[in-house]
């Protein structure tokens, strides 16, 4: 395709070895009408400036690598079309994360939060592989399915006003993940996770801003997960009981 159009990209640059604070750099590049924002960043990397660092891989909106702030909003850059924007574009690293280099943010804190909700099936008696599968009705699947669709792109952390003020906040994706397991008919770990959810900086820190669900590129609705998790954590505490959801 050749439809000569040029565009100006203003990109945040930061190399901790050289820069005291982040700076910006402008690139004027030819763009194609069917490009995503990521294509433009890749073009700069490949053809204009090899020193620019960013993460990407699948280019089909499923690996979660390519989140960046585009004109101030967190976006999955392989999913958003360049043509949605004007002639100039501001690209920055995801907000609310420490920056490692250029458009690359620190993920370790996120990974710790992720693991802290025990994102695995907890059950008293594990089935042997030869015993076949659990029965789970389509309706039981539907209860948690949506919350299992998170690609860990971290856009919701960039959008969340609570994370902005309180970096330790467990945050939308991790809560949705814990809730996903709590809602799974095969899981018996609700009590353990609700204990976690009743702790400081978790579900009760959420201020209902709903920004997380608005920016989610996969329509996961983490805000709904947080609300449901809140309710469950309270009910669980109020009844003072652990009611196993599976028969003995």
């Amino acid at each position: 395709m050749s439809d000569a159009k040029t565009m100006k990209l203003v990109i945040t640059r930061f190399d901790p070895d050289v820069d005291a604070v982040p700076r910006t750099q402008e690139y004027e590049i030819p763009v194609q009408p069917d490009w995503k924002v990521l294509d433009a960043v890749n073009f700069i990397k490949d053809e204009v400036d090899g020193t620019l660092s960013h993460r990407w891989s699948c280019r089909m909106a499923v690996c979660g690598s390519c989140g960046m702030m585009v004109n101030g909003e967190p976006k999955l850059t392989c999913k958003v079309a360049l043509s949605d924007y004007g002639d100039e574009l501001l690209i920055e690293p995801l907000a609310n994360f420490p920056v490692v280099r250029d458009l690359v943010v620190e993920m370790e804190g996120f990974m710790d939060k992720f693991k802290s909700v025990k994102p695995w099936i907890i059950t008293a008696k594990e089935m042997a592989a030869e015993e076949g599968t659990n029965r789970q009705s389509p309706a039981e699947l539907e209860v948690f399915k949506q919350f299992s669709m998170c690609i860990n792109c971290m856009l919701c952390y960039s959008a969340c006003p609570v994370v902005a003020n309180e970096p330790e906040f467990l945050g939308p994706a991790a809560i949705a993940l814990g809730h996903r397991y709590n809602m799974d008919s095969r899981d018996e770990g609700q009590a353990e996770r609700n204990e976690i959810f009743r702790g400081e900086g978790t579900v009760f820190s959420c201020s209902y801003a709903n920004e997380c669900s608005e920016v989610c590129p996969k329509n996961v609705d983490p805000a709904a997960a947080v609300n449901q998790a809140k309710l469950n954590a309270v009910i669980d505490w109020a009844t003072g009981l652990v009611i196993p959801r599976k028969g003995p």
Partner: protein
Amino acid sequence: MVDVARHDIVIVGGGAAGLRAAIAVAEASPDLSVALVSKVYPMRCHTVSAEGGAAAVARADDSFEMHGYDTVKGSDFLADQDVIRYFVEEAPAELNRLEHWGCPWSRNDDGSVATRAFGGMTTKRTWFATDKVGFHMLHTLFQHSMRFDSVVRYDEYFATKLLVDGGVCRGVAALDIRTGEVSAILGRAVILATGGAGRIFPFTTNGMIKTGDGMALAYRAGVPLKDMEFVQYHPTGLPGTGILITEATRGEGGYLKNSEGERFLVERDYGVGTKAELGPRDMISRAIIQEIEAGRAFKGPYGEYLHLDLTHLGEELIDKRLPFVRELGRIYIGVDPVYEPIPIRPVVHYMMGGVDTDIDGATTLPGLYAAGEVACVSLNGANRLGSNSLTECLVFGARAGLVAVEFANGSSAGNEDALRAQADEERAHIDALRGRVKGGEKISQLRREMTSAMEDGCGVYRHQDTLRACVQSLAQLRGRVSDLRLEDASRVFNTELISALELINMIDVAEAVAISALDRKESRGAHTCREYTARDDQNYLYHTLCSFDPAGPRLGKKDVTLGTWEPEERKY
């Protein structure tokens, strides 16, 4: 001197195969320390993009014999039959495990796991979680792996070299992408699970990270690559991006149509018989190319294309079973498949070949194992059946993990000084490459030349003269890549350096593909020669081995294990 980290088992790769191996080790021997080294965070690796499903016998109308026969026939009789038998028998237990670990498999009304039809499979045996199967399997495996404290992750570490002492592989040199430091990650056995190499081609379903690193690492350590000439073209990629539209679209009833609106697989004889759209991939990709050559294709900015028509399936089914396909169609080609056919063309998808292993995943280098797409355990022969490879990652990832444990238990740690010295050397090499402004060659330019040589030489149909030209170009590129020019001198998250290392790996792998292809003067599975149109069991019923030599690749042969199914004409 580089830092040394000590573990018992070192696994390179955090996709389905690497994670499954790590879990197998952790469950079997909680006291063994596992290093899980991955150049991207595990949930980013390319298993995540698999859409359609994972095969294992699940229904009363199915059997191991049928799954085995479909697989061997799909392979055009180049698969090892003992491997197939082991695979089909282990497959159901592996998918059951995934279910126990929380994989959200799609369900039948009675709560049992649902299965769908797939290409080359005689009955519905492909388990699925809508059309995001790789995504769900990967996240399930990754999340499950987090419960094991014995698994120590090295996320965003790029392995650059296998460390070998006394003829035994005992670790890897790896570059910490964030700090730029090289370290030696040592163990008593190493498992490669680094995935495929689709990025040696310009038009592929594979993500940017699929650069054949593990193949190149093993190859340069003296381990042969096997059956590299067999590259799978998937019939249905989106023109331009190469993004995959899963075979599950046809499993759910979709049609392939030419520009005359004709279901050419039904109307014309392409050897797929009544299977029609559910024929094996090699045959359907050839049929599409022939339709294009016959002038029955649409013309577009990214070459000629055909139609994948789902419009008769209805919105409800598409939303329930193929929601991702709808999303991909809308976002990446501006087509809503509920209302319009999807433009498609054959696209490089999967490497049947890889690091030569036996049924245990053991390579010819003691202490080194390989599983998943990086390996060639010879399950897929000359053509893989869709949905066998996710299951392959599980079955052979687990087995490699367990066999590596046995090996480690009987093996010493090796000479640490010698291993560290090798990593020191590797560090010096990487330091010299980083920010090497005195070079004259540009990464993106060489990558373009490599991928276009591969497209010309190693396409769906191969000609002897273009293949020869391809081999020559690659030999030249192997020379030119030593004169790369790198602009980025920073040690922190230097992705230009990673691209350079990946390019060097890809050129080695590409050369192995092209040389192996030139040597096989027959047509079998995905390897189709214009000049040698028939399968030739008399002369070519063997595995091709390609070994590294500084002077250029050397070729050898390995027997195919037969015994259960006699090779027969492949007609559906």
